[in-house]
Structure formats: C-alpha cells, structure tokens
C-alpha cells in the first residue's frame, strides 16, 4: 500500500512539473476530426489548451518540441459511458444479488448521501424509492488513483463520461479527464446525464423484482419529476401565499440531469426503449446495442444517439461442450462488431463505451474488431471523439483538435487500429503521459485467472 502511495506521489510531482512549458508536436500527421486531416502539421499546446494547429504553426521559443515524424496525432479518445475513476467500480456489479449480501464494494457515499439510503430496507413499491441514487454525483466520487486510468490512457483514452455505479437510477455522470493531481482537476463538466440500469435486488429484497416493475418505477419517478417541477414553478411565481413544495433529494437528481441513458442490448430491448424513452420527456441516449443490426432503420428513424458497448459478446469461457450455443447467440457473436459500421452507414450518431473492458490491449482489440467489422477508420475515430462530445453538448471544448479546445491528445506511431501501432504520448489537459510498454501489453495473464466463468451481466433487460 505504501509503495502505491509513493509511486502516486512521484507520478503527481512529475505531472506538476510539466505544466508551464508550451508543447509543440511538429511534422506529424494530424487527424483533427472536425476538419480535414493535415498530412504534415503541428499542434501547439499551452496552458492546458490547444493554442494552435495547422500545417504552419509558429512555435514559441522555449517550447518543448516533439518531432512528430511518423507519428499521428488524434484527439484524446472519450469513453462515452464509464466507471473509470469511480473508486470501487472496478468490480462488475452483480446483476441480482440480494440486498445486504456481500457483493461489489459500494461506491463511497458522497457527503450528501444519507447513510439510511445506503442500506435501504426492503421496498414495497415506488414510494420507497428502491435502488435510487439519482442524486449521487460522479464528480464527487471520482478519484485519480483508480488504477484502471493508466490502462485507459495506454489505449488512447483521455476522457470519460463516468457514472456512479449502483442502483436503478445510478446517479449523475460527469465528463472527466483521466488524469489529474486531485479529483477536482479531472472534472470537465457535470452533471451530464442520469444513467438507468434495469436490475432487481434479488428475490427477497423487494420491489422491483421484475423488468416490468423496473420500467414502471422509472416511469413513475419521471411522472413525479414532472409534478415536482410544476409545483416549484408555481411556488417560484407566487412565493408568498403558496405553501412551499417539499424538497425531494431523488427528484433533484433527475431534475439536474440534462439527459438520461437507457439500456438496450437486444433487438426487442431496443424496440422497448425507443418507445419508452420519449415518455420520460428528457433527451435520452440508448446504450448497449449489440443486436442493433436488426434495428438499424428503427434507430435511424428515432434519431436518438446511441452508445455501443465494447464488450463484444463472445463464447463464454469454460462452457460445457455439450451446451451448444444457439443460432441467435452465434449470430450475435458474429454480427455485433458490425453494428458500428451499420450505424455509421445509416448516419446514426454513435459512440463507444468501455463496459468493463479495462485493459489497454483489450480495449484496442475491441476497437479493432469494430473496424474489422466494417467501420471506416475515420468514422471510428469520430465515434471515439467528437461524436461523444456532441452527444453530451461538450463539442465546444472536447472531441477535436481545434484552437481553444482542451489539450487532450493521443499520439500514436502508426495508424490507430493497426496491430503494431503503439501509443507514444498521451496529453491530458496539456500534460504528457508516456504509457509504459507493459501497460500497453496489458497485465501478465496469471494461470487460471481468465478461465473462470463469465460474471453475470450487469442488470436485467
């Protein structure tokens, strides 16, 4: 533990020392995403921002100049729905564990979290507000010490839309940079959305214990929100002489959120969410999408942004050889990585999310699978950068290499999505990180470490 601490301090002091110098990367191929690619140009970073970019950039004296010959500069990748940076979220949440049973370590409660909410008693209905953490803010929870951040950076990710990790209403997400001296340095914007996961607390933990209960509950809470907003509007207009409406912790969480993220992995789930989403009267993003190859037209018509999970479905490990996968499973294993390509072709706005793919090689492999599945490299880069920034309304500061944007860059030797490509530098807020070769290769696979059965999927659908 002590060693980790020492290392962390060492890393942070290096980080602090870097700040004042302007950094120039010159003679590099620059993929701006927002505009045309610059075959040979320079990017100048100063004060944590992109000060200039183009084929001819005047480089100030005293700048640290990086010779970019043979290198490609991309905007830093954004994980569009993440738990990176949330302490205790590294372990996947069990789908149906009884309340109070040992499970994933709970997210550290924020100061505002009443302890009573952390151990909810058995709930009997929506009035008990089961599994509701809508008020929890990723911005209050996020920490630069999450060990997954280094791996994420090594795969080219500089930024993540990160969300708290428990309950049906998971809480308020924040767009965070994946490095920083202190937690507060990481946050770019918040709240950026409310994530919803359909899940039961296990058989005996009470309502909701079914998918229909989940949906009914989400619907009810948004109905409550509607009423709550109206009551407050009326009150604000006529404070004197109007009885004050109650303050509702849970609804405040919903009210603050500019959008809601809804899960839909399979075709039927997509149908359900496309019809349910509009009921909430809040802009929504659909996440999951592995079977979206059956619903491309519907998604296009709905004109809703979507996030594709990078945890591609695959043959479960350690499966009984007598248990033959069914045709639909086989098709999903085969066709899911083709979904991004189909979405791009249909011009559906989409991004990627890591979905517990946490090591650099796995992330790279997962992204490459999408490219091999028919997604053009340019579209892939866009889905990892500007599209996500646009979805969250942050394209004024993130997602492309443009003057004035946050200096989040990833510099690769070779083209992204090529096997031999290595990440040479990562800049976050203008600070350089050089991912170690070890991190890029991923942790040593221990004997038997990966032979265990797959953990249950998060949530129900």
């Amino acid at each position, binding site marked *: 533990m002590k060693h980790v601490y020492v290392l962390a301090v060492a890393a942070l002091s290096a980080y602090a020392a870097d700040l004042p110098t302007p950094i120039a990367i010159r003679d590099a191929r620059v993929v701006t995403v927002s505009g045309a690619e610059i075959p040979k140009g320079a990017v100048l970073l100063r004060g944590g921002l992109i000060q200039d970019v183009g084929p001819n950039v005047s480089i100030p004296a005293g700048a640290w100049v990086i010779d970019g010959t043979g290198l490609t500069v991309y905007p830093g990748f954004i994980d569009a729905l993440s738990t990176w940076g949330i302490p205790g979220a590294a372990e996947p949440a*069990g*789908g*149906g*564990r*009884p309340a109070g*049973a040992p499970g994933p370590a709970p997210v550290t409660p924020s100061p505002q979290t009443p302890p009573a909410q952390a151990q909810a008693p058995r709930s009997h209905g929506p009035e008990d507000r089961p599994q509701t953490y809508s008020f929890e803010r990723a911005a209050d929870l996020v920490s630069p010490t999450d060990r997954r951040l280094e791996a994420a950076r090594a795969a080219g990710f500089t930024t993540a839309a990160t969300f708290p990790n428990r309950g049906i209403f998971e809480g308020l997400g924040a767009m965070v940079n994946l490095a920083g001296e202190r937690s507060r340095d990481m946050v770019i914007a918040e709240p950026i959305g409310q994530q919803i996961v359909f899940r*039961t607390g*296990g*058989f005996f933990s009470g309502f909701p214990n079914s998918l229909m209960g989940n949906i009914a509950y989400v619907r009810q809470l948004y109905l409550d929100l509607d009423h709550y907003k109206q009551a407050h509007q009326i009150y604000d207009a006529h404070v004197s002489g109007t009885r004050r409406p109650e303050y509702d912790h849970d609804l405040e969480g919903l009210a603050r959120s500019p959008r809601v993220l809804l899960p839909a992995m399979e075709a039927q789930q997509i149908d359900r969410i496309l019809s349910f989403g509009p009921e909430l009267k809040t802009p929504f993003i659909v996440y999951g999408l592995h079977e979206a190859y059956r619903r491309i037209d519907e998604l296009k018509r709905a004109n809703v942004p979507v996030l594709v999970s990078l945890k591609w479905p695959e043959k*479960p*490990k*350690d*499966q*009984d*050889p*007598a*248990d*033959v996968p*069914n*045709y*639909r499973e086989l098709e999903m294993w085969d066709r899911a990585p083709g979904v991004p390509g189909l979405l791009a072709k249909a011009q559906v706005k989409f991004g990627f999310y890591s979905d517990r793919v946490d090591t650099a090689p796995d992330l790279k492999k997962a992204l490459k699978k999408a490219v091999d599945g028919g997604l053009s490299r340019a579209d892939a880069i866009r889905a990892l950068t500007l599209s996500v920034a646009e979805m969250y309304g942050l394209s004024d500061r993130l997602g492309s290499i443009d003057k004035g944007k946050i200096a989040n860059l990833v510099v690769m030797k070779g083209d992204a999505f090529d096997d031999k490509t290595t990440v040479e530098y990562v800049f976050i807020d203008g600070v350089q990180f050089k991912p170690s070769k070890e991190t890029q290769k991923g942790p040593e696979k221990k004997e038997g470490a990966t*032979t*265990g*059965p*797959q*953990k*249950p*999927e998060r949530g*129900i659908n």
Partner: protein
Amino acid sequence: MWPGIFRLIVAACLLPMGLFGAAENSVLITNVTIHPVTAPEIQNGSVLVIDGKIAELGTSIAAREGARTVDGRGLHLYPGLINAATNVGLSEISSLRDTVDLDEIGPFNPELRAQIAYNPSSEHIAVTRASGITAVISLPGSGASGFGLASQGPGTIITGQGALMHLEGWTWEEAAVKPSAVVDMMFPQIQTVPRQIASFLGTEPRGYTELEKEYKQRLEQLSDFVERARRYEKAKAAGGPEFRADAKLEAMIPVIDGKTPLFVRAGKERAIKDAVAFADKQKVKIIIADPREIGSTGPLLKSHNIPVVLGKTFQLPLRDDDPYDAPYTLPNDFFKAGVKICFGTFDVEFARNVPFEAAQAAAFGLPRDEALKGLTINSAQILGVGDQLGSIERGKVADLILTDGDPLEAKTNIKQMFIAGREVSLESRHTREWEKWEKR
C-alpha cells in the same frame, strides 16, 4: 336426487349376483373387437375372465356360470394402459408439503419404498384411470431428467424403490403388483445453470471445469456405493458376528444381482453414455428414463439391450435451435434405432395424459402399433412383468379397458375398466365436477 336413488337401485340389483355365485372378478365380455396387442385383432370376439385372470379369448366362448356377461357390442377391448413413470399416490397437492412424500435427502436411499408411501385414497388414482390407465410405476423421486428436485446440486442419486401399482385396491398391499419393480435413480449430471437463472438465484454460474470435477466425484461415489453393496452381500453370505445389517446396502442386493433394474434418469447424450458405461462396469441392469435426446446413443442402447422409458412428448425441445417437433419425433428415433421403448409422464396430475403423449409420437412417425405397445406390452416387459400384464393373452392378469375407439385418440371414451378382472368405477373428481356443473 334421482341419480342417487338410481344408483341405489342398481346396487341393490347387483347385490344378489355377488351373493349367488357370480364372483366379482370373473366376467365374460362379448361381441367386442379384441386388441390383444401381441396378436392380431379379433373381430366380434369374447374374453372370459375367471378369478381375475384371462381364461379364454376367441370368437365363440360360451357363457360360464359364476361369470357375469358384459355385452360389448360395437366396443373395443384393449389391455389396460401402463404409465411407466409417475408419482401417483405419493403426492396429492404438490404445494402442500404435508401431502407430498417424495424426494428424501441424502445421496443414496435405495431402502425407501414407494409402495408403502402410496396413498390408496388419492384422488389422482381415479383421475388417472379415466383415460384407460390401469397400472403405474410410482417413483419416490420427483421430476424428470432435467430440472427437478432430485436433480438439484449435490442432491440425491438413488431415490428409492419404485413400485408397480394397480390403480385399484383398498390398501397399498392390495394395489401393489410388483412392490420393488425398479430402483429409482437420478444419474449425476453436469448442470450448468443458465446465466439468467443464476442471476435470479443471486449466485454466479459455475464453470465447466469445476462442475466436471464434481461430476466425476459423484460418479465415483456411485461406483463406491455399488461396490460396498457387493462386499456387503458377500459378508452377509459369510455371516458371523461381525456382520451388521444395513438397510441401504440390503436394498441394493437385488440390483447387483441383476434382478431389479436401476431406473436411470438421464437426459442428455453424455448422461446416457456414462450411465451405460456405469452399468457395464458394475454389471447391473438399467432402464434409461426420460432421455431428451438420442445423439449417438441408439446403437449403444441396442447393443446393450437397454430399454428406454420416454418422458413427455409435449414439451419444449432441449435446445433453442432444435426443430419444434424434436420431442415428438424422439420416441420414433429410439424405435428406429431398435431400442425397446415405453412411455411415462414423471408426474402426478398429468399421469392420465400418457396415452396422448404416446399418440403425439405416433402422429410424428412412430408406428401406431408401437405407440400402443409403449403403453402396454413393452411397458410390462421393461418393468419385468411381461408375463403378467400388457396384453390380452391367456393366463395374464385381466387388466382390460372397454372403449368406443382407439385409446390414443383424445375423443375416445373409456366405457368400462377391469383391473384384475374386477370392474372399477370410472368416476373421478373430474366427472363429479362435470356432473355438478351440468346441473347449473
């Protein structure tokens, strides 16, 4: 009111017959189409039953003193049907624990006897009779070869002795045809719990490596138990003060002597193959019960002369991508492979449906005669009573049904039923309900 009085009058008329010589288990059934099952059908024939046994059958049988005559003009006579796998008499209402006497805990319970747990007053007995069933195997373990109580986790392997019971009798002693017809067994299996179910149960699905290890341990446990029984038999023969009686091992002696078959529930190909290998190694007789697929086991079962008790045909296919009719065609697959088959339902409340389970197989390729055999003579032979039940032959027990058609057809009515020559009522909870609501 009237029907009640009518019944009294009928009873009063019948009474003197009992008093004056007509034994109630002797009867001459005339003018029927006889379907002996083991022989070609006889048009316009008669069957004479004396003291519960079939004495004669043919076209011209004279009335006999002491045997009343039943005119079966226009009707058909079949041997009573057998359901080769049920829990009839051992469970009344499955959700009321007090009425259920099944599924003892512990890996090996061969000493448990279903026949003494059999409740001769069970409502299910009359209900089951309604579709022409005169005898059933009552098993001490519930469920079929898949998800059942007996199949859960490190559950029971040997559940006890299954009894062949007549669906008639004042007491279980009277009803028993063969008290220990089979020793009921759930073959160990590798049950990978689907992820969704695991999630529902709040557990994590376990990997194959671990489950396979456990499976092999359980197979070893089973072999050890059989070998212990063998040593026990020797020790018993040798006698001496060191010998101690053990009910469990004692109950295994007929099994290791090859007299009583093990009734092995084995659903998947692997379980069937491993069960056959086990039987080979331990030199015990087995019946494969409720296979859900045939795989490559056909030739294996045929060469080992191992019969099969099929479970319900009306169920979903084993795998998602199997053809919808896989369970319907499965009986024919075994038949074509040369395996002797019969039918069971592995339950209580639907035990009466066994003719229709077989009929579904007949509709999907199984020859009609074979479907009928699978409810009669094959069942009797597989259960070791081929010389007593299962066909209309001289000397056999007179389990007979008088019908207005093929008993495999749902629209056929069972008009009269004789068990061991004694006419039994076809009234049941269902007919009583029907009569009641007719009056509304």
